[in-house]
């Protein structure tokens, strides 16, 4: 029978919703146990949140000063040790998970399945390749531990409320390297909904034209309570910081409403929004490829249309 270890992602003492999504994938394996592993400098609050996720059997904590920041070189040896006895190790496919999971897989000497979209059987998964232009079915060798990253946008967060799983402190005997050190995290401070969990996202592209012009995207997003995203062209041009990039090499998101404004719809961008509920495109070029995937399209100048949308909302 399968036993699954889910690695918790957290920041600033709070559990990231990607963890509950990875638990959903673990539930789909239909195993006998799902344990969540929290590696942190102080783990109690995070563990308490994880214990409420329905489907979780136990929460294991490793609280050490070295775990204050998520350095893959420091976390991976601990995860590899903790993985003993588990058939699967699931990690969210966020920059955190993408960084640490392959390092764990290599320490265990096993292959990794990246970006799991669906669980077909305990060792059979679907995942995207070629920027999502093909979906492959992959079978992992059942005699080895499966290390997999879980594509957050494909999985709803497991519910919380009914569960109260036991929390146990774990001691792992792993030598931790000191060759890699955390210096700082420069966070875009924002009261807006987080791009990866927002139910509505408004994104701007090169068509917005400048950093100053991007204010109209931010204002409109605030008006409808949306998170803000951007195309790579907009990020490269310096209109917005890189953590707003949506797409193959940025964030993969699945909001209920996605509004692409001044974005042409390159395949690398579309990869990031395939799972969005409703896509709206606003573009002055009626031939733009974004209209091929949009549920609602509106051809016109964004600088004229956005004020009109705001007026129509009042």
């Amino acid at each position, binding site marked *: 029978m399968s036993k699954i270890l889910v690695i918790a992602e957290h920041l600033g003492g709070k559990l990231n919703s990607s963890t509950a999504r990875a638990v959903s994938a673990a539930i789909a394996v239909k195993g006998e146990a799902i344990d969540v592993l929290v590696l942190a400098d102080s783990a109690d609050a995070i563990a308490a949140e994880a214990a409420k996720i329905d489907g979780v059997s136990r929460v294991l904590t490793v609280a050490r000063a070295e775990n204050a920041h998520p350095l*893959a070189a420091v976390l*991976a040896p601990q995860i590899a040790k903790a993985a003993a006895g588990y058939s699967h190790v699931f990690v969210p496919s966020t920059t955190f998970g993408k960084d640490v999971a392959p390092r764990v897989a290599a320490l265990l000497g096993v292959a990794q399945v990246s970006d799991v979209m669906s669980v077909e059987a305990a060792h*059979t998964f679907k995942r995207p390749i070629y*920027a999502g232009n093909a979906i492959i079915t992959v079978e992992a060798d059942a005699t080895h531990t499966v290390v997999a990253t879980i594509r957050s946008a494909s999985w709803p967060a497991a519910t919380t409320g009914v569960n109260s799983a036991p929390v146990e402190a774990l001691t792992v005997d792993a030598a931790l390297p000191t060759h890699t050190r955390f210096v700082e995290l420069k966070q875009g401070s924002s009261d807006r909904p987080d791009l990866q969990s927002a139910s509505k996202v408004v994104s701007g592209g090169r068509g917005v034209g400048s950093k100053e012009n991007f204010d109209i995207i931010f204002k409109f997003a605030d008006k409808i309570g949306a998170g803000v995203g951007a195309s790579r062209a907009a990020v490269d041009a310096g209109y917005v910081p890189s953590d707003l990039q949506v797409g193959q090499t940025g964030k993969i998101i699945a909001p209920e*409403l996605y509004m692409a404004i001044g974005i042409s719809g390159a395949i690398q961008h579309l990869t990031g929004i395939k799972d969005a509920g409703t896509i709206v495109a606003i573009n002055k070029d009626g031939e733009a490829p974004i*209209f091929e995937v949009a549920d*609602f399209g*509106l051809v016109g100048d964004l600088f004229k249309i956005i004020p009109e949308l705001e007026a129509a909302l009042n």
Partner: protein
Amino acid sequence: MKILVGYKRVVDYNVRIQVKPDGSGVVTDGVKLSANPFDDIALEEALRLREKGVAEEVIVVGIGPADLTAHLRNGLAMGANRAIHVVTGDAVQPLTAARVFLKLIEKEQPGLVILGKQAIDDDANQTGQMLAALWDRPQATFASKVEIADGKATVTREVDAGLEVIEAELPAVITTDLRLNEPRFIKLPDIMKAKSKPIDTIELGSLGVEANDQLKTTHYAAPAKRSKGVMVKDAAELVAALRQKGLL
């Protein structure tokens, strides 16, 4: 120091990939192949470090079939000093690629290894991290800025929460993100010069790497298509439509 650069050939990013009707693979016959964009960025960064005097030699590495030579020549034309071609007819999974790189590291003793954060065909995003684990050295993935001084790399990483800065003692593995640099274009005289640069050819089998690929791809499918929606005539109609769906 020497810098080892991963230089993988992939289907060009402009190609719209088609899945074969029988689900046995994707159509790759006759499609344009190019360097993985992240690997061009890796090579560019290595060349800049050499130009700054931080490194003396830049070596591009390709793992793949016999006809990879022309691709590796592009890397040489861009400016690499030499190339290593690890020859194999099989598709190589990331753990095997990492084991191959480790063998080359043992031989070449580089101070830095720069790989792409992901190859845009398989989108695995694994090789650099696996290599760093096997080598027991630091990894700095998704780099958008690299500074080398005093035997360490200070790397700015593009992470979901923003930009993270870490310090890694050398030797180390760095994987590139898109904004690290803009790769240079290859000029005609460089193509001529590249013809005389050496390419070492090594059979994968002779490296003593066990290619125990544990993943089997059993089926390829086209992604679910989104159906084309409707065009609305103005902002008021759009707001009404979204309100009706309960989205606003």
